[in-house]
């Protein structure tokens, strides 16, 4: 199991609380680094020079509706930093709008998940995500070929 950190870009305290609760409930032990805004996320990722993104994160969980630099712009920025798409980015969004879904996949998202309303559904969905990306799937090694 991959133990590198999970980076969550999420401005809403309540949604982050729900996310952490769901990760815990799903038995995920990876450290979770939270960025409260897009610019915050960029500054953290850019600060460690020379260290590839894949060295620092196993998964990025990305909210779409962010203040300042929004989720979609951030997603494109991630793909600039990580041109070989080594780190999976999973978009978490309130919107089920087909246009939003399409835009995210086109910008390089690995999955798009609509945030559930009920807490128990968070547990279910996040559990499924962890089960797949952290247990079933093998993520790329730290040093690319």
């Amino acid at each position, binding site marked *: 199991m991959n133990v590198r950190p999970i980076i969550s870009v999420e401005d*809403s305290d*309540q*949604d982050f609380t729900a996310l952490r609760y769901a990760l815990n409930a799903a038995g995920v032990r990876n450290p979770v680094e939270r960025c409260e805004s897009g610019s915050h996320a960029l500054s953290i990722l850019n600060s460690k020079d020379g260290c590839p993104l894949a060295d620092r994160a196993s998964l990025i969980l990305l909210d779409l509706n962010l203040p300042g630099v929004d989720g979609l712009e951030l997603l494109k920025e991630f793909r600039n930093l990580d041109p070989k798409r080594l780190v999976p980015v999973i978009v978490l969004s*309130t*919107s089920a709008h087909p246009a*939003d879904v399409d835009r995210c996949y086109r910008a390089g998202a690995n999955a798009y998940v609509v945030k559930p309303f*009920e807490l128990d559904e968070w547990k279910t969905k996040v559990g499924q995500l962890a089960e797949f990306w952290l247990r079933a799937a093998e993520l790329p090694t730290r040093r690319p070929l």
Partner: protein
Amino acid sequence: MSEQAITAKNVDLSNCDRELVQYVGAIQPHGAMLVVNEQTYAILQASRNIENITGLALDQVIGAPIESVLGRGNANLLGRAPLQDGPVYVLRESFSETSTSVNVFAHRCGGVLLIELESVPEGRVPPTIDLYSKLRMGIARLQATPTLQAFFDMAVSQIRDFTDYDRVMAYKFHPDGSGHVIAEAKRDDLEPYLGLHYPATDIPAPARRLFGLSWLRHLPDTDYSPVPLVPEHNPLTGQPVDMSYSILRSVSVMYSEYLKNMGVKSTTVMPLMREGKLWGLISAMHHDAPKHLPYDVRMAAEFLAHMLSLLMSAKESVQTYEQRLRMSSVTDQLVNAFNREPDLHVAFGSRSSPVNVLAQVPAGGAAVVSHGKVTLCGSTPCASDVLALAAWLDQQKQPVFATDALSEHYPPAAQYKTTASGLLALHLAHRSPEYLLWFRPEQLQTVTWAGNPNKPVEIDETNGLLVLRPRNSFARWKESVLGRAEPWQPWEIEAVANLRRALFEALLGRAEEIERINRELIELNVELDSFAYAASHDLKEPLRGIHHLATFLKRENSTLLSEEAKKQLDMIMRLTRRMDDLIEALLHYSKTGRSELTIETVDLDRLLDEAIATCRHRIAETNTAVRRSDSLGTAACDSVQVREVFTNLIGNALKYNDKSTRWIEVGVEQARPKRYFVRDNGIGIEQRHLERIFLIFRRLHGRDEFGGGSGAGLTIARKTVERHGGRMWVISKPGEGSTFYFTLEPESDR
């Protein structure tokens, strides 16, 4: 000349329209005529009465030089006078042997010189200067008349004043050669002829031609005996002499006979010419006795007739011009009204507005036909007749259609010919029959003829020969003119064509405007779309937070919380869940109105299978029997959306039922268009609520009765069928059940 020329010798009413009146070969007896060789000035022919006038016997005159009659000096005048353009006054001569004074006129025609010696009537001749002032005043008055009618009223009274005739009439020819009296000045005791119509045979074509050749034709005594020329034919050519321009020429027997039958003793006729064509006549008549008008008076009258023709044209043009101006100002007002108000019926048909369609051209009534609706103004056929007429016009494919005898083109119009014998139609739109129509009533229900026009001849068979004579009965004869209206004038048709052009320009502008609005609407829709999602996102996020907080609070502090507090937390969770549903439904509803329909042929039975499958858990839970009577067949529709309609209706039917044995039935009624229905034996709906249930977020029951729901389902379902062109309605009996109907295409023939 044809093989047998019709002259005074063989004319009768059957051939008088071909009579060669100018070759009559005779003159009236109030003067004498000499036909003179143009080169040698030798006299070729003379009228038989030459001796009565000049005192010289016929055989003395014929063959002699002209100076033997007029004297050498006078004869020389002839060589100098311009004689090509009809009779010219040359001199006055007196013959002592007969104590007769004559005015001598001369003109050239047909290769000879015609010299006419007209005797000067006895009695006082008004001095020329008087005539001149009278004329000048008369012309000034004529110029000042406001209308054509006033102009002619003034003209006939002026001429009567001049000539002292018993009766002076202005007569107008119709295209068919008949005519009627348009103005009259007469002695008080005489019977009026004003308004009387005369058939074309009364003034036959050759007579009409000759009227056009001379500005004045004077017949002092209708009861005269013609005086022949001797010899009868020109001895050099062997032909009769062409007397077309002669002053003294004997008139057609038919004409003098006709006048005698009318009780006319003397007459003077002057033509009214318009653009070089004979338009009408000024006709002066004397009833009591013969009347020989002095040359000076005739000259003044002739001058006046000339002026009349010129003034009349100008007057008519001015009148036409004013009408054009008026019509074009109405056109402007109509187009303005159309720009303000796109509905033709409101823009043109309003009785309250200052200008409506009826004002465009002089007509008895008008109609606006558009979108299968008719608006009538003034006196018109009924709306259904107008619609039928518009449908017929649609087949004619003419942008502007004008007729003064509609029933000749369209026989059903005979039924309403009194109001609409005349039709002027303007076709506005090419796709749907959109028309502006103007109607004119049948003109003069009756025409008063001077005598029976169908029997203009009298047949005298007493002597065993068929003798045709001009009719002598001028008793009023009323004849109905059927199905004809006053004709549309060229400038009226032109005005309507102008209106059409102006309206098309306005329409073009409007189409551009609509296109611009459509573009804006599309942009607005896109904006609204993103707004709805943004709003829903922003609303949902805090709502989700509240919901989560309440969930955590309840779970993590369950031992600390009172039962009351736990209930309140449950309430918060329920309310936030409901609000989330509402936001979702609103989003869904806005999407229903905007998303494009994907229309294809859909197997509705399969669609229903899927809808029932979606609801299978609820069906099982509620233990409801689902009946499907007939096959629904196929329909052209959007399968995803129509499946949702079925799901929604079935869901409602499952939900609102409190019976122990429950059923729903889905089927179709074979009407046009097909009516699909979902029937249940549920709780039913009270009559007063039947429409309310389709309003968004309106609920008839408590939030949590019958399993709750957002309250948008029926609104969305109805909107879906309406976007397909169909409609949705419900019939219900409270306590017994409801049936929801819907169609998927427009009702036909509506």
